[in-house]
């Protein structure tokens, strides 16, 4: 009985799969027909970006293991980083000093975040949790005051504070994202829709009402924070989406993927509008960020480099041999004056 049902189900699945494929190719055809003037063509009348002279300005050494994530403080000079070695370090990057070193009971802290209020940090990873620590200057033992905020059923890949210090968004290998209240550790909203691990998220810079997620199901989704609804889903990538970032105006975003490419998607046009790649770029893009004006895009890759792209002209304008191992995280400072990159080579470097 079960065998027959299983067979029917399988035939059904195949039929549905074929139908989905036909729809997909029809959609692509329609998109191409009504295709706009290419971004590249519009940008052709713009001046070229002058050659960038980005140099390493600070090297932050202190982690004993691979650096997995970092987040800037809104004061533009401090940042927090987390590592495979189980340590979370708060740095005054400008002074190249370690302000705090927090030890977690588990290794592989895949994400860390700095609250806008500047007094707490969040972190988590393979422990499936998100933990917050207060980091006021006078506090003796922050580890004692830590609290578990979020619980997932698989690893937590990314956590970010929503505007204030009072809500955290997390995404996880359990295919969901979730919104948590920091004070009460309550689950405020959960976001279902991805069919595989969710690897990254970014909150809209314009208001706190929407956020993006990138997943190993090769799609990026835009969510309404309040209702939990997936507003729109964007496909196009041929590999896991490791990084996602809003454009400064909040009307478009860029993604970095295992397929070695970065792509620009527009929310209003509902589609991909630019592709950033070269034939020789075959290593996964792991992280991405946009400069303050939106003209430049920085992406970190598994070939140990950071590439700088002209967002409009879709050409590479800089290549930094940044690290001695894979680049895992990258973020420009809040005022756009520097870019920080973290790597498996255990260091973080600041570029300007």
């Amino acid at each position, binding site marked *: 009985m079960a065998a027959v049902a299983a067979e029917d189900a399988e035939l059904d699945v195949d039929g549905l799969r074929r139908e989905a494929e036909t729809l997909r190719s029809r*959609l692509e055809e329609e998109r191409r027909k009504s295709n706009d003037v290419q971004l590249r063509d*519009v940008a052709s009348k*713009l*001046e070229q970006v002058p050659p960038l002279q980005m140099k390493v300005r600070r090297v932050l050494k202190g982690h004993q293991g691979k650096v997995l994530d970092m987040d800037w403080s809104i004061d533009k000079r401090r940042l927090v980083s987390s590592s495979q070695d189980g340590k979370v370090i708060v740095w005054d990057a400008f002074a190249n000093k370690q302000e705090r070193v927090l030890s977690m009971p588990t290794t592989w802290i895949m994400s860390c975040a700095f609250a806008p209020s500047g007094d707490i940090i969040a972190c988590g990873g393979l422990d499936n949790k998100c933990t917050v620590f207060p980091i006021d200057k006078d506090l003796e033992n922050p580890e004692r005051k830590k609290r578990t905020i979020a619980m997932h059923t698989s690893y937590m890949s990314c956590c970010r504070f929503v505007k204030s210090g009072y809500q955290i968004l997390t995404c996880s290998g359990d295919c969901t994202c979730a919104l948590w209240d920091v004070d009460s550790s309550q689950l405020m909203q959960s976001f279902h829709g991805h069919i595989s691990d969710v690897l990254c998220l970014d909150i809209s810079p314009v208001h706190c009402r929407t956020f993006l997620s990138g997943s190993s199901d090769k799609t990026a989704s835009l969510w309404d924070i309040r209702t939990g609804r997936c*507003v729109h889903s964007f496909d196009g990538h041929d590999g896991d989406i490791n990084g996602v970032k809003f454009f400064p105006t909040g009307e478009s975003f860029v993604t970095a993927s295992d397929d070695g490419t970065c792509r620009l998607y527009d929310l*209003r046009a509902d589609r991909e509008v630019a592709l950033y790649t*070269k034939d020789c770029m075959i290593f996964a893009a792991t992280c991405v960020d946009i400069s*303050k004006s939106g003209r430049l895009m920085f992406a970190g890759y598994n070939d140990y480099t950071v590439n700088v792209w002209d967002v409009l002209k879709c050409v590479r304008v800089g290549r930094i041999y940044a690290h001695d191992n894979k680049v895992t995280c990258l973020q420009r400072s809040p005022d756009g004056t520097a870019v920080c990159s973290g790597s498996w080579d255990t260091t973080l470097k600041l570029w300007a």
Partner: protein
Amino acid sequence: MMDRGNTQMERIVMHMQEEQDGVPIRTVKSFMTKIPSVFTGSDLVNWIVKKLDVEDQAEAVHLGSLMSAHGYFFPISDHVLMLKDDGTFYRFQENLAKLQRMFARKWEFIFMQAEAQANDLSRVDKKRDKVERKILDSQERAFWDVHRPVVGRCFDDVCEQFGDYEPFLSPPEPSNPWITDDSSLWEQDKMGENREIPSRRVRKWSLSFDELLTDLAGREQFLKFLEKEFSAENLRFWLACDELYAVPLKDVESAVQEIYSEFLAPGCPSPINVDSKCQAIANKNMEKPNRYTFDACMEHIYNLMKSDSYRRFIRSQQYKDLIQTKKKSGAGSDKQWSLVPAALGGRNLVAKLPSLPNRNMDGEVLGELSSSGNQWSLRNKQPSTSAASSSSDGL
């Protein structure tokens, strides 16, 4: 997070081993022996430079070294897996690709079996829903395709507007702290109320309403301006609602009550300028107060301020006085604006603003374009289909 660079790498390695088009592989005679099937480092580097669009020799060496580290080829007389751009001999690892493929397939097979065993029937339903959703999505998309804006133009305009404020292209004033080790740029913000605000920062407020609102000094100045016009309650309401997102959950309800009694309740001290519809929504939401209670009113007030008070502020004497605080070139206010670097095509940023009189407005009037763009997005987009269109500037 499997690195799919492997398949692309394999493709390149296959290409490298092709008879006609690949890296020249030969047997080298040396003393009494023959070294079969080798190629030199420089041959490989030259091949990469020719066939893949690398920028320079260094990039080719870097890429080749990484491929070597993955095991696709190796130096025949050394154990260090690195590529050198010279006469060193290397050989391709024949079986690696085959082995990797074999194991990859095995894993896929195991996975499929496990999936079949789990036999989750609900998956079928999910897929069916997905198909239906795709149909609906495609119909919706087709509808918006008719009404969508010109994508390319919008990016273009945004980047140009903000190009002058791109720290990596035009150094900030007084300097980029990371480069000069001087943190005065950040100290500026911490100074008291009577500090002098740099003209460049003031100019930024004219680029968009959001730029004014996100700058603390901008908010202060805007509030001062509105107080003179006796319409400050709108901004105070908006700022109070914005603060709600930063309030701990336990304090939200009381904060919401405060806002309501100050700005919305009948007979309140600072009634704000909302229509009856927004008032009704707010009244209803007060039954279950939360952070989002005043969203509709906030949006209404935001658009009101943007289309009315903001424009008048940018045209006001107060704003002009702020801009004139530091005369750069000394020859008069006209000259100030030509400091746009040539890198941006030498275009006059100010030519794009509709509100400043006595200027030659050659070139597009960008200000008009973006605001009409926003009006488009309010008029034609149904609120239920896109949360992103709600209150963001139509740039």
